[in-house]
């Protein structure tokens, strides 16, 4: 239950830079996700916050106070480990109550709090089992309960769903979100699954090679990414190479792609005449009748998936885009189609990251 501010965190392992000027903030009660591919430094960042490793530079503030000098055991942060890290020789109840053993907490209160939190994570009745007698999802929930029972100031979760199957993943994800919101605990959550990040986060930090590429709300990240990397990591993305013609009004630009022209939104600034990248998510594209001033293309692939059919369309300049088409729509036999772009849902980005 505190706000956390991370500023310019740096960490190297020999030559490898694991964290490079990472800055993030989490307001009280927020869930902030670190999202990125394997090896981008998510775990390293989380371990710095937890106090298991010391950063080479930068600072971490909790409620405005630097905690770098505080040992992990005094930080009062609950950590949920990727492989659970349950105490294999202790029962479920003993695992969960472990963090209370050495606190000012009577035996009665300890038992009450353990029962309460086990109830919260729906593990009632399994108190006396050993971890090896539990399923993966149950172990995961014990790990969560163990971190929650100390009422931590901050909850740190490192890929907590990585070892669960798809169904269980959904259940436990909602459970984590519910419990986190009910207890209004500030949390950092590490994942490399964009859908998971979208569903659970108040804010997402998309990481790339130890840096934060973008730190914003899920909506912002998805709809207004700062660079191609962020756009492609947060969902299916089509990129159209375009030429900027002029700025129509602040935040809106006229761009040209081949013979078509669009008035699209973008963060800018863009110098007229330069090249830029237009992000068109599949849902912003549709196949239309022949309309002048739109993109022409040829369908090269289509797969029928039941609710939709997915098409891949090659544009005259050789780029290909993917889009969804209503399943009952038949495609022209020669494959030549016109693609209609919903300009309100497209987003203009600089060619290279700023």
């Amino acid at each position, binding site marked *: 239950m505190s706000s956390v501010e991370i500023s310019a965190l740096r960490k190297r392992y020999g030559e490898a830079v694991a964290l490079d000027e990472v800055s993030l903030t989490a307001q009280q009660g927020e869930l902030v996700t670190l999202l990125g591919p394997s090896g981008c430094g998510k775990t390293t960042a989380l371990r710095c916050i*937890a*106090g*298991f490793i010391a950063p080479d530079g930068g600072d971490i503030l909790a409620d405005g106070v630097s905690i770098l000098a505080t*040992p*992990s*055991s*005094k*930080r*009062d*942060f*609950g*950590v949920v*480990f990727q*492989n659970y*890290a*349950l*105490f*294999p*020789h202790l029962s479920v109840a003993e695992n969960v109550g*472990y*963090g209370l*053993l*050495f*606190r000012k907490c009577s035996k009665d209160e300890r038992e009450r709090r353990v029962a309460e939190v086990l109830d919260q994570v729906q593990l009632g009745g399994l108190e006396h089992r*050993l971890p090896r007698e539990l399923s993966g999802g149950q172990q995961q929930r014990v790990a969560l309960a*163990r*971190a929650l029972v*100390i009422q931590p100031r901050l909850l740190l979760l490192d890929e907590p769903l990585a070892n669960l199957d798809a169904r269980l993943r959904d259940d436990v994800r909602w459970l984590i979100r519910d419990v986190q919101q009910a207890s209004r605990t500030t949390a950092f959550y590490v994942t490399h699954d964009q859908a998971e990040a979208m569903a659970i986060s108040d804010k997402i930090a998309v990481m790339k090679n130890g840096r934060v590429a973008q730190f914003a709300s899920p909506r912002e990240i998805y709809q207004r990414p700062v660079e191609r990397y962020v756009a492609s990591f947060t969902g299916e993305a089509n990129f159209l190479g375009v030429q900027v013609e002029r700025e129509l009004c602040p935040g809106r630009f006229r761009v040209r792609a081949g013979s078509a022209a669009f008035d699209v939104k973008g963060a800018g600034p863009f110098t007229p005449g330069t090249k830029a990248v237009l992000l068109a998510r599949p849902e912003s594209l549709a196949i239309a009748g022949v309309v002048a001033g739109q993109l022409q293309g040829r369908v090269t692939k289509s797969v029928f998936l039941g609710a939709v059919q997915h098409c891949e369309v090659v544009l005259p300049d050789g780029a290909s885009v993917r889009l969804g088409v209503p399943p009952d729509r038949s495609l022209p036999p020669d494959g030549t189609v016109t693609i209609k772009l919903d300009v309100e849902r497209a987003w203009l980005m600089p060619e290279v990251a700023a």
Partner: protein
Amino acid sequence: MQRLPRLALGLPAVLLLLVFLVLPYAEMITMSFRASQPGAMYGLGFTADHYRKVMTEGLYLDALARSLLNAAFITTACLIVSYPIAWHMSRARGRKALLLYACVASPLMIGVLIRNFGWMIVVNVDGPFNRALLAMGVIDKPMRLLFTQGLVALALVHVFTPFMVLPINNALRNINPAVLEASESLGVSRFATFWKVIFPLSFPGMQPGLILVFVLATAAYVTPALLGGQMVSLMPTLVVQTLIGTFDWPLGAALAVMMATAAMVVVILFSLATHRLMERVRA
């Protein structure tokens, strides 16, 4: 056809046990029931007299009790010495780990006689140990260490340490380091983490170490005989004296059977007492 290959696979082990364990013990137990006869290995007929004698005469019972207590003491000392070594070993990587392995195994690389003569030279009245202490001014006249029970204990702890260090090191290596971080993050001190997590989780290594050292210490003969002199009678010494001194093989066999049985009873009791803990911590 299915069963035959399996039987064949088990055959060498069965043969080995039969030849080296079952047959010798059967022979020894048979011998312990034979009648004694002065001037011969054993006489005609069978008798339980030796056991009666062994279990009623103070000399033998004292020696047995002393041997078991002695072994318990050496085992405990060995554990205390070995645990920190095992801990450091489990943390070490690469060359350092290799070097530590070599150091820990070094007592076993020297034959028992040479090792004990080494001790004799080191602790001799004008040996290097006394000379060093004299030079440092810790003592003003040389200590007589040879033929003391302290030296015997020291020498036995020295040679049994590898049997304790190696399994404990193994168990410590098997502890997931994240578990220790979890304990730390839950606000538990390192000291408490040791007793609550590390110590119980290393028990699967401690149990074989304790049993092995206890059994070896109970049966140790050469080291006590060479370094301890003849003042204190321990069970193995008595057995050997009876066998080759008085040449009373049946009595010697009875003593040996009693010693082995007593050690086994201790081991079984210990295993039973730690059964619950072992069930919990087994991987």
